[in-house]
């Protein structure tokens, strides 16, 4: 009788600047399945990891904002292609984290389709939300949307894959870069998704993914002075108030998405608009 083949367990690292380092703190937290078996030792991300991720996001920002809308759409589409190619892997991973087979399939399919949805918006939201303004003086006046910059995202805890993608895709479709804190209770999909990003021509630093404890990192995500906007998806009123208060120090744009059903009707271009600024230009009309 042939002996059983020993599986090679995956090491779940974090994703910063297009690379997969371990947390600089060296700390971990064990992720267990329903039966209590340790499935993975997740990186317990530190504020230094977050600091490094923000540096990477900031460095990547100018290039990503200047990439053509067409290119951003192509890259988002490619992420969808890569995720579709790994459909079985992601379903299995969701089941491992407690989902039923049916629910896992639905979540993965919706995730892929959501990426395609936002790929299609990349070169259109500008047309829908811009304006040429009929000012009363002899000036050509136009308002365009521009990405706000670096966005920190506290991804929803109850939706490990779809909730993360539902926040990341509109942010990067709009030309921003981001640092994401994965769900604490369902962290595996976020790390695997980083691998998908890595295979999709996404420039390093455009999306950075950390795992770790909400209790330790929320404050960092909300207070960093070089972050332009913060998105939060969970938490008590107290947490919300704390995030809003900390964000005020550099007038961070605060986006609350704590009542969103990510598997329901949670895709629309206003999620892109949330992380855009409006720039208006005037120029005389005359010979």
């Amino acid at each position, binding site marked *: 009788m042939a002996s059983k083949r020993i599986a090679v367990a995956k090491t779940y690292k974090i994703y910063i600047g297009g690379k997969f380092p371990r947390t600089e703190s060296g700390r971990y937290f064990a992720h267990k399945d329903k039966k209590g078996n340790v499935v993975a030792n997740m990186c317990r991300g530190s504020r230094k990891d977050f600091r490094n991720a923000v540096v990477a996001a900031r460095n990547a920002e100018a290039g990503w904002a200047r990439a053509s809308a067409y290119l951003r*759409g192509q890259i988002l*589409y490619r992420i969808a292609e890569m995720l579709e190619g790994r459909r079985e892997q992601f379903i299995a991973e969701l089941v491992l984290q407690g989902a039923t087979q049916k629910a896992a399939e639905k979540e993965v399919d919706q995730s892929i389709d959501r990426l*395609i949805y936002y790929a*299609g918006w990349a*070169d*259109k939201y500008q047309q829908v939300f811009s304006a040429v303004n009929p000012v009363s003086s002899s000036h050509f006046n136009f308002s365009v949307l521009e990405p706000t910059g670096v966005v920190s995202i506290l991804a929803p805890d109850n939706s490990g894959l779809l909730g993360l993608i539902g926040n990341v895709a509109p942010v990067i479709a709009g030309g921003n870069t981001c640092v994401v804190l994965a769900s604490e209770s369902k962290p595996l999909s976020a790390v695997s998704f980083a691998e998908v990003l890595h295979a999709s021509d996404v420039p390093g630093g455009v999306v950075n993914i950390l795992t770790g404890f909400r209790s330790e990192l929320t404050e960092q995500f909300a207070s960093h002075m070089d972050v332009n906007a913060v998105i939060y998806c969970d938490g008590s009123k107290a947490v919300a108030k704390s995030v809003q208060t900390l964000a005020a120090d550099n007038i961070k744009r605060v986006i609350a998405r704590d009542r969103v059903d990510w598997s329901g009707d949670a895709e629309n271009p206003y999620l892109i608009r949330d992380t855009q600024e409006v720039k208006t230009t005037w120029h005389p*009309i*005359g*010979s």
Partner: protein
Amino acid sequence: MATPENKLAFDGGWAYDPAPESTDHIRIESRYGLFINGDFVKPESGKYFDTINPANEEKLSRVADANQADVDKAVAAARAAYRGPWGRMKPAERGKYIYRIARIMQERAREFSVIESLDGGKPIRESRDVDVPLAAAHFFYYAGWADKLDYAFPGRKAKPLGVAGQIIPWNFPLLMAAWKIAPALACGNTVVLKPAETTPLTALKLAEAIADAGLPPGVVNIVTGAGATGAAIVEHPDVDKVAFTGSTNVGRMIQKKLAGTNKKYTLELGGKAANIVFADAAIDQAVEGIVNGIFFNQGHVCCAGSRLFVQESVADEVIAKLKDRMETLIVGDPLDKNTDIGAINSSMQLKKIQSYLKIGQSEGATMHQSSCSVPKKGYWCRPTIFTGVSQSSRVVQEEIFGPVLAIQTFRRYDEALVKANNTPYGLSGGVWTDKGSKIFKMTQDLRAGVVWANTFNKFDPTSPFGGYKESGVGREGGLHGLDAYVKLGAR
């Protein structure tokens, strides 16, 4: 050493060796049927006609000549698909099919480019770098609109029209097919499309790609043929929407034919665009823009900058530089990667251009052509400019559709503007100046659907294109390009 007139010498010296694009990886069938209901089928009449390579007059393939019965079949297939799978499909899923077409075009890009150049005569550099990428991008752009129409029309609900009958020209065969099919499908319509009789092949290759993409049968039908086939499509009672790109004369006939019917139509017709160069322009880039505007694609461009207006104080300089630049344009084998100007699309078109060259000279204009050699077989026209013309000259008024530029001077802004607008056409216009306010004033004053400032012949799937006045009605591309393929009702 300096010659007396300080002229530059481009003749003789270093010559580029032939750099032919390879054709051994492409597939052209010896005969094509009509693509109806997801398959290639024989034409009811059993008749076929040749399609040739205008660079050497050799036959490339034979394509079917669709008659009334074939058109009936195609429309019926489109109707069934509209009532059936396509009409019932979730918009996001429709979008995914259109994305597939875009991806396959990207994967087969080189084959599409080579066949486009063989069939129509345009240089491989143009089909490779412009036509095919833009065509794929057009499908990609409109794929994304399929499930987003609620955001495109504030306060209104957009619904498809039904079956679209589409007739396209020979100057950008694959690109025009993309401009027609992509938005139609995105909005939920089905399509019967007829490519031009001299350039059917890339549309047929597109049909293969559409079949490979798995689109339900009947969603897109490609029927080849000539004028009679086109008329049958336009006049078919079960076609809800007609889209035509071609000459103003035919557009006029179509509009008359559709009078009294309920059919919606969009027309993209001819042009005689003014390209206006002010003395404060970035002169060298303006010269390049003039060349780009009239000589590339052999001047077979509806929005070509075929009337140059150059401010008098820089006229001599601009014309001298233009002549120098013309000397470096290579006219020749479309499949040579160094060719700038390919073959004229057909002997008929060449005759038409040549007759205008005669007309221009008989009107007293001075004609100047570059001195390059042209191959012996095939249809060729050297880049040509006419000076000593005025608004009343026929070569200034009428669309030639070849590499022929009519040059006038002007002194003041108002003069240039009045002359630029003094035409029944209104497709495009160009303005070259370093002064921003003048650009915005020109774009306000020019009666044209597309204004190019300090650039020319720029196209993008997100940018609406179409004419004022007799250059047509309706827009293709961008958000505004959706209008043509929807009916708007209350929410």
